[in-house]
């Protein structure tokens, strides 16, 4: 099968009519090129959306209180309630497979009044009371100093970690922030660290303007007692928060004397579910890319099949001679199929290579002209290339099959008679 003569003959046949061979090859080339480029574009969009999620732990849900909608155990409907630290402890105790349960409190917010003062400079920032775990759920890069630690929590230290945005508004350029004091709603906190968050989202500016202080200090300084404003809960990697969240709600409902059927008392946002929905979209897009790409490729393959039929027709007499000389019909069949596969693979490889060049150029222009919203690093993996190669071999086989069949269908004596 892999002898020199056979390959020599394949090359001889395919090069005997260059123009026709190149035109035929173009069909396959084009099909595989479109498949590769479509997949790469889908990947680019996927990467763009993924980077919009930033570094946030995606197996996470946020949970807040909304007021009950059903009366229960003598308590009226429409009752307002707040999470307590006991809820956090109960969740940690009763629901397995949770990685982080972070209670949070918050001051300020969108369009809030100025709440932070340093000397003559003031600003309105989100101030969070947090546990050290939060840096794993909402990652940030510490640019100087440190983040909140367990000792801060235990000692209720009045320390703060501020964003680079906060630093820009409250400090002069080049001024050292660590060790200085800022006044948050009249209470002094010492800055112990600065951070910068990664985000490609529209709120890239906003997320740098946050201040993190220890949860316990927050409660004491701003009279929260053991109230918890909201929670960020992350599940372990091998379980999904979407499956665990019902258990969490049950625990909260028990603790807060909420009717078991009251679905509206606890509000939540399931990042994981959202993320999966988006991932599902990309899966669908990948299928569409394969579908369209393979259909385009199919027309190229039909072209190959067509040309092979013509080649067989042209070589009818030659095939007759060879059979008279005693060539095995299977050998002839194999020859035709190998010609077809060879042509398909060569043109397909050219398509893959050219596709890679196109992707490279797109990336080059993306890099030189700045990023485009929602489109990052279009690329195809080695797996896709392997799949493409398998598709090529199979389609070459299919393209060669009918012509090969027709090559040996005609009897040698009839083949010899044709002129």
């Amino acid at each position, binding site marked *: 099968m892999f002898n*020199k003569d056979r390959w020599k003959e394949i090359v*001889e046949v395919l090069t005997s009519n260059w123009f026709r061979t190149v035109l035929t090859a173009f069909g396959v080339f084009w099909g595989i090129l479109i498949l590769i480029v479509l997949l790469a574009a889908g990947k680019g969009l996927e990467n763009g959306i993924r980077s919009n999620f930033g570094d946030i732990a995606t197996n996470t849900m946020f949970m807040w209180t909304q007021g009950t909608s059903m009366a229960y155990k003598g308590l009226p409907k429409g009752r307002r309630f707040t999470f307590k630290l006991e809820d956090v402890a109960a969740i940690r105790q009763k629901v397995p497979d949770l990685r982080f349960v972070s209670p949070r409190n918050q001051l300020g917010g969108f369009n809030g009044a100025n709440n932070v003062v340093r000397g003559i400079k003031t600003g309105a920032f989100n101030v969070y009371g947090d546990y050290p775990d939060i840096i794993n759920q909402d990652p940030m890069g510490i640019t100087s100093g440190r983040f909140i630690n367990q000792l801060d929590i235990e000692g209720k230290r009045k320390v703060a970690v501020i964003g680079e945005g906060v630093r820009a508004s409250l400090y002069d350029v080049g001024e050292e922030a660590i060790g200085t004091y800022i006044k948050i709603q009249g209470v002094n906190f010492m800055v112990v660290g600065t951070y910068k968050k990664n985000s490609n989202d529209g709120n890239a500016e906003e997320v740098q303007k946050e201040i993190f202080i220890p949860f316990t200090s927050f409660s004491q300084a701003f009279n929260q007692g053991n109230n918890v404003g909201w929670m960020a809960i992350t599940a372990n990697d091998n379980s999904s928060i979407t499956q665990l969240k019902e258990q969490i709600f049950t625990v909260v409902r028990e603790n807060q004397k909420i009717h078991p059927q009251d679905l509206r008392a606890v509000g939540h946002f399931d990042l994981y579910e959202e993320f999966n929905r988006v991932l599902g979209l990309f899966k669908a897009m990948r299928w569409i890319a394969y579908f369209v790409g393979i259909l385009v490729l199919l027309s190229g393959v039909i072209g190959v099949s067509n040309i092979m039929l013509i080649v067989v027709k042209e070589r009818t007499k030659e095939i007759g*001679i060879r059979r*008279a*000389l*005693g060539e*095995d*019909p299977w*050998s002839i069949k194999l020859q035709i199929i190998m010609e077809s596969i060879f042509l398909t693979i060569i043109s397909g490889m050219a398509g893959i290579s050219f596709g890679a060049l196109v992707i490279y150029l797109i990336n080059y222009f993306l890099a030189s002209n700045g990023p485009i919203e929602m489109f990052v690093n279009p690329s195809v993996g080695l797996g896709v290339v392997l799949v493409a190669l398998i598709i090529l071999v199979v389609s070459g086989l299919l393209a060669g099959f009918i012509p090969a069949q027709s090559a040996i269908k005609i009897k040698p004596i009839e083949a*010899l008679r044709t002129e």
Partner: protein
Amino acid sequence: MIVIKDLHKSYKMGSNSLHVLKGINFSVEEGELVAIMGSSGSGKSTLLNILGMLDVLDEGSYTLDGVPIKNLNETKAAQYRNKFLGFVFQSFNLINYKSAMENVALPLYYQKVGRKERQEKALKYLEQVGLREWADHLPSELSGGQKQRVAIARAMAAEPKVLLADEPTGALDSTTSYEVMDLIQKINDAGNTILIVTHEPDIADMCKRIVHLKDGVIVEDKKITQVRASQYV
């Protein structure tokens, strides 16, 4: 070498069938040089095709070198053709993108002979037909007589039991025809069995035996004194 008994062959042409061979009894000994003569439509080509396993018989039996030839599938037929028979055609039927040597080496390739040995043998047979120095030429660069000599070399390359020639001189002028016949006679002198289909009496006279076919039956089968082609060359 060849034994044919009561051979019948007919072709279906739409609703009516054409009875081409109507009971042929015929045998050829080893080392014979037989001319099969007859006018167009006498069935001589059909007979040769059946002898060459390119066509199948309807009735009767055909034995080649003691092997009964019947119920062959294409693969088996190809093997037998390769092993037992060498073909020479009127229109030479060389493969035009292969050099003279590659053409001669083809039957050996189908016998799965190694590349090197194949080339050596091909050159040896080209030498025998006097075309050693034309080994690397394509058929399009050869004259008609040269092409037919390459075709004969190719037919001989597989060392067949029987050489079948269908109008080997039909496309050649008389001088070249005699050259080719001279070659065929020499091959026959070396002990090879050869069957030639021809309608030219002078070519038939250069054989050792003439079989006349008419309307699908043998009307005459006689041994003759061979005319040597070398005297005309």
